[in-house]
C-alpha cells in the first residue's frame, strides 16, 4: 500500500475546514428547504466538502507514492514556534490601547511570527516575502507610502540572496518614482506620501 501524501494532506485539509465550517455554522438558523435561513447553504456546502474530503482521503491511501517535500527538524520547530508566537502575541498586543487601531496588533504579531519562521532556511523565502508585505501594512498609515514601500522592498529583497545593496537601492528609487506617478499623480488614491505624526 503506497500512500499519496499530497492527496492525504489535501483530504485532511478539506475535512478539517469542513468540520470547522459545520461547527461555526451551528450559530446560524437553518430554516427549511422552502424558506432557507442563513445557515442552510453553508450546511449543504460544508457537508459536501466533508464528503469530498473523505473521498480524497480514501483515494490517497491507494494513490501511489507522491511524497511531500522533506521538512528538517528546524522547519518543524520554527513553524511551531512561529504559530505559537502569533497566537500568544496577538491577544496580548490587541489588549494594548495604543495598538488597538488600524490592525497594528495583527500586523506586529504576524511580523514576529515571520521573523521566527525566517530562522529556518526552508521557510525563509516564504517568511521574508510575506513579512515585506506585512511591514507595508504596519507602516502605511503613519509612515506614509514612501517609507512603507522602502521597508517592504528591503525586507522582501532579503528573500533573494543574489540581491546586492546597490541593486536594492535602485529598485526602491525606481518603484518610488513609478508608484508616485501611477498611484498619487494619476489615480490619486487617498494615502499620505510622507510620515505623519
Amino acid at each position, binding site marked *: 500500500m503506497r500512500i499519496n501524501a499530497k492527496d492525504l494532506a*489535501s483530504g485532511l485539509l478539506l475535512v478539517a475546514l469542513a468540520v470547522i465550517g459545520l461547527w461555526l455554522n451551528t450559530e446560524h438558523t437553518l430554516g427549511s428547504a422552502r424558506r432557507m*435561513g*442563513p445557515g442552510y447553504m453553508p450546511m449543504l456546502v460544508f457537508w459536501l466538502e466533508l464528503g469530498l474530503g473523505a473521498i480524497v482521503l480514501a483515494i490517497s491511501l491507494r494513490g501511489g507514492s507522491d511524497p511531500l517535500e522533506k521538512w528538517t527538524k528546524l522547519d518543524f520547530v520554527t513553524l511551531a514556534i512561529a504559530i505559537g508566537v502569533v497566537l500568544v502575541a496577538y491577544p496580548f498586543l490587541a489588549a494594548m490601547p495604543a495598538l488597538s487601531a488600524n490592525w497594528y496588533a495583527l500586523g506586529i504579531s504576524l511580523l514576529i511570527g515571520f521573523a521566527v519562521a525566517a530562522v529556518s532556511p526552508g521557510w525563509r523565502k516564504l517568511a521574508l516575502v510575506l513579512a515585506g508585505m506585512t511591514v507595508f501594512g504596519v507602516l502605511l498609515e503613519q509612515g506614509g507610502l514612501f517609507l512603507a514601500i522602502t521597508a517592504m522592498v528591503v525586507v522582501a529583497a532579503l528573500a533573494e540572496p543574489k540581491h546586492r545593496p546597490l541593486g536594492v537601492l535602485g529598485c526602491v528609487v525606481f518603484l518610488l518614482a513609478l508608484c508616485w506617478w501611477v498611484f498619487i499623480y494619476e489615480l490619486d488614491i487617498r494615502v499620505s506620501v510622507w510620515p505623519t505624526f
Partner: protein
Amino acid sequence: MELLFANLAHGFSVALSIDNVLFALLGALIGTAIGVLPGIGPVATISLLLPITFGQPATTAMIMLAGIYYGAQYGGSTTAILLNLPGEVSSVVTTLEGYKMARNGRAGAALAISALGSFFAGSIATILVAASGPLLTSIALSFGPADYFSLMLLGLVISSVLAQGSVIKSIGMVVLGVALGLVGTDVQTGQQRFTFGIPELSDGLDFAAMAMGVFGIAEIILNLERPEVRSVLSTKVGSLFLTKEEWKRATPSVLRGTVLGSALGILPGGGASLASFGSYMMERKMSRGKADFGNGAIEGVAGPEAANNAAAQTSFIPLLTLGIPSNAVMALMVGALIIQGIQPGPRMVESQPDLFWGLICSMWIGNLMLLVINLPLIGMWVKLLQVPYKYMYPAILTFCAIGVYSINNSVFGVYQTVFFAILGYIFAKIKMEPAPLLVGFVLGPMMEEHLRRAMLLSRGDPMVFVERPISGVLLAICALALGLMLLPGLRKKKEEAMAG
C-alpha cells in the same frame, strides 16, 4: 443580420474612441509582456490591475483587461518558439514544434504563422461572439432561478472536470471557493456569517486580495524557491516569410485550430490552454505533415496557436451572455464588473450596449494591434527576458500591496492577501489547482440566491430542478460529465492531453 451590422458599427464607434484605443493598446502591451515573461500569468496580472480600473469607465476597464488576456496568448508563443520557454501554460505545446522549427532555421516562419494564425482565429472568434451574443441572451432570458442554478452547477462541474490534475480535488477546490464566498452578510436576513465579529468582513472576503494572494504572491515565493533558469537567445529569427509549401501545410491547420478553439472556449471550464493541447493532439493525428511531428512541423505551431487565441476570445461568450465565468480569468472579469456596479447576466446586452459591443469590437482592434506590435518588435520582447527576476518580484509585490490597500483604503486587505498567499503556497505544495477556487468563489453567492429563489417558488420541492426541462437537461449533462470521468480510459486520455 442588418441589426448585427448596426450593432457592430456602434461597437466600433465606442471601441475607436481615443481612450479605448489607448487602453486596448496598453492592455495588449502589458499582456504581451507578461506572456513573454514566465512566472507571471494573466490571472495574477489582471488581479493586480483590478484596483487600478476602479476610476475608469466600465467599458474602458474591460477593454484593457481583455487586452491583457489575449495579449498574453501572443506573447507566450514568442518565447516558446525562440527559447523553448513557454511564457504561458497555453503555449507549452508551441515549444514542441516551434522550438524545433527555430532550430531548423525557420524561427521567423514559426513566429509569422503563429501571429497570423492567431489574428485569423481571433477575427473569426470575434464575429462568433458578436453573432451568438444576442441569440444566447434571448434564450437566457427565459431561464428561471432553477435553470440558472443548474447552469452554474454545470459551469462548476465542467470547470473542475477539465482542470489540470485530479478531478475530485478540483471539485473540492470549487466547493471550498463556494464556502469562502459565504463569508459576509447574508443578503436576505442581514445576519453576519463567518465574520468573527470583524466589521471589514461584513462585505465578504476581498476578491482581489484572494486572487492576488493565491496567484500573485504565492507564485513569487514558489519562483524564488526554484533555481532561476537564465536563457539566452541563440537562434536567429531569420526570414518572416513563409514558403509556398509552408502556406499549404499551415492553412488547414489554422482553420481546424480556429474551429476547435472556438468550440472549447465556449465550454465552461474551457479556455486557451485546453484548446491548444486539443489542437496539437488533433494535428498530430490528422494533418498532412504528421510524419514531421517532433522535428518541427509547422502544423504543430499553426493549429495550437490559432486555437488558443480563438478560445481566449470565445470564452467571453458565457460571461457576456449568461454572466457565468468559464475560467479563472473570466471570474476576475466578473469581479471587475461587479466592482463597477454592473451585474453580469443576460440583461447586459440590452442595458450596457456600449460595454457589450464596444468590448467585442475592441477585441478585433486589439488583435490587429498585436499583429503589428508583435512581428516587428520581437527583438524588444525577447530583451525583456533579460530583466532578472530579483528585480521583478519587488515590483509585483509593491503593486499588489498598494492595489489591495486602495480597494477599501484599509490595511486589512493587505493582511488578507498575506493570509491567501499562505493558503496558495499550501495548495501548490499539495497539488491542489487554485483556478477552480476562484470560479467557485465568484459563482457561490449567485448560486445561493438562485437556489433560495427556486426553492421558494417550488415550495421546498427539490424536484423542480429535474422537472424543469432546461434545468433537467443541464443536470443530466453534469451527471454525464462526472460519470465519464469515472471511466478509467477517458481519465487517462485527459491526463495525456494535459501533459501534452
